[in-house]
């Protein structure tokens, strides 16, 4: 399966946005001393970062490089 319509750059932006958002939430969870801070980290921050990593890895596997697109995919 090739995601030629989306392209590697779009996936990279999505991945970066998820990672940045997740890391910002992680900073909040680390500075907030409260029982819910662990929940915030485990269910929000780690999920966003993990999803960002998965999108990045998916971009490596599925996205079509510009060279392939010129060859006709």
């Amino acid at each position, binding site marked *: 399966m090739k995601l030629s319509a989306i392209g590697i750059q779009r996936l990279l932006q999505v991945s970066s946005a998820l*990672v940045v958002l997740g890391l910002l939430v992680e900073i909040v*969870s*680390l500075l907030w001393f409260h029982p819910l801070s662990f929940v915030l980290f485990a269910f929000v921050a780690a999920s966003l970062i*993990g999803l*960002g990593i998965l999108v990045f890895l998916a971009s490596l596997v599925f996205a079509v490089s510009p060279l392939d697109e010129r060859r006709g995919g």
Partner: protein
Amino acid sequence: MIGILICQIALSIILAAIFLIRPSLTSAAGWKIVAFIGLCVLPALCIVGGMNTHLQRSEQTKFCISCHAMENYGKSLYLNDPKYIPAQHFQNHRVPPDMACYACHTDYTIYGPFKDKLKGMTRIYMQYISTPPNPITIPGGFKNAQCLHCHAGARGFEENPVHSATMSMLTSNQLSCVSSGCHDSVHDASQVDHLKMWSPGQ
């Protein structure tokens, strides 16, 4: 330690932000490696570091008593009466004061800390979504292994005639250390406001 983790997270944010603004940089081979580090390796390390920090933090006494339902249990550590076992252990540093709850309530098995965290999640659920039980009880009861982890083999414990006579019952959990007539004065959280308190340095 948390400072190093925050620096690592800040570096990851900077790298990820670069690819958020300029994703076209990855067309160069060198930037592909930077993208792999910034969007895969460092964020994964941040998750590991964050999990480690949160797990260590959850072992602290002040973390345990930060829940409203646990406030009186925290106060009971300052009861001015040596017959209260948790207070005696806490005030005399028989357990590390900053990890007092964890020292006596953790499950000393290979997967014990992991099981404790899962139990902790159910308590967070009870605190914020359901209702905490009143009185709060330990599922499955207080296990003697948590006392014996430190006391087993100690001279004062082994030479006590009551302990030596009941040792097999204690190790098999047939007789609880905190059963009536033995060390039955524990937290007494409901009465804590009416009892005399000890204040450090008095």
